[in-house]
């Protein structure tokens, strides 16, 4: 059952986002999903689409917080903000679909214009990084996600894996080297 415990302190909530607190993520994701699903199903969308839109919205809020592009005040309700982001993504999806249905697709004309080329280069690099990480071997993925997502200290990880901290540091380096070789 969904637990409706409200976050009292948005700054702390932001902190949770910056530190990748899985418990907080899970609660927020589950608490807000049903609302996203309801508006999408109501407009004849599918459950799979609701999942995709909600996850896209979650990732985009996460990125905004990481990049400090989200302004927060004491009365900011992040649950509502996430829901509004989902709604905006859903509206964008509907309008894209209606454009597709009314105009013939001409891929050559669909060039994304940005203020400068940097955004696209950085975005492409991030996509490459994600793809390279997806293709890493499982032990490397687990190690890197424990270190960089869960922020587990090297010494603690060494105990969990019954090894020395220096071994962990070297393994991490080897994994990053492999990842780096696939960035370009």
């Amino acid at each position: 059952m969904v637990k409706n415990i409200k976050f009292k302190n948005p700054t702390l909530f932001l902190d949770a986002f910056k530190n990748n607190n899985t418990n907080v993520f899970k609660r927020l994701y589950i608490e807000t999903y049903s609302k996203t699903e309801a508006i999408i199903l109501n407009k004849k969308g599918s459950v799979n689409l609701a999942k995709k839109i909600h996850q896209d919205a979650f990732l985009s809020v996460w990125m905004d917080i990481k990049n400090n592009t989200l302004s927060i005040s004491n009365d900011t309700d992040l649950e509502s903000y996430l829901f509004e982001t989902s709604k905006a993504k859903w509206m964008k999806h509907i309008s894209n679909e209606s454009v597709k249905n009314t105009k013939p697709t001409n891929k050559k004309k669909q060039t994304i214009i940005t203020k400068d080329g940097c955004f696209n280069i950085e975005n492409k690099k991030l996509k490459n990084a994600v793809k390279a990480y997806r293709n890493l071997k499982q032990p490397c993925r687990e190690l890197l996600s424990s270190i960089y997502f869960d922020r587990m200290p090297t010494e603690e990880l060494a105990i969990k894996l019954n090894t020395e901290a220096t071994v962990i540091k070297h393994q991490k380096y080897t994994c990053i080297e492999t990842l780096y070789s696939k960035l370009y």
Partner: protein
Amino acid sequence: MKYTNDITQELLEAIERYIKGTMDSKELKDFNDYIKIDPEFKAQVEDIKVLLLGIEKQTLEDKLNEFHEDIINNKKQLQPSLKVQFLNHNKLAIVASIIVATLSIWYFITPKNIKLYDNYFKPDIGINTNIKDANSSDFNDAMEKYKNGNYKIAIDAWQILSERKPKNDTLNYFIGIAHLANKKTKKAIPFLERTVHSNHTFALMDNARYYLGLAYLKEGNSHLAKKYLKLSRIDSAKYIINELN
């Protein structure tokens, strides 16, 4: 610009300290100076930032999929059985209202501390048992049981070892967690108390304090729960304290 993806382990560690903001002022100044004069170095720093962001982003996507699985599984559990589908609408409405009433009653009568505990308690993932050491084989066997969710079997095996080594922090810690996972909070507390009050430094001390705080939370002792959660540097501890205040 010529990009290079050759990076030394020392440089990786330095870039990480830079990203995390843990450099001292002198190192930070030198690092920033180097970024200004060497575009190739600057590009490497940016590359590492993007790589680390990529790791986090994909891990988060994996987690979101796991959360979604939980939603689907919960829905399946709440769905009426085939028999119920053949009942007429009136009966179906009665069954539905009973389910809703039961869940609502559960929600309103469940104290906040139990809800918080349920929300935040997740058993420790356990430790690696690859090392082939005759002395630790019993411990390792029990650890495998623990990892597979056979908490009772793991507890029984570890308690035999614990009688020989009552001051072993790792044993006390995992017996405590296994009791919590096995929903025997009262039994967990003495083992976790022993761990947090041991004299020497235990590497999982923050975790032990966190779990002890959670155990007291479940037992309804907010004072002791806050005490141990405040002592723990685990991130989730401060969120629980915030919600308790």
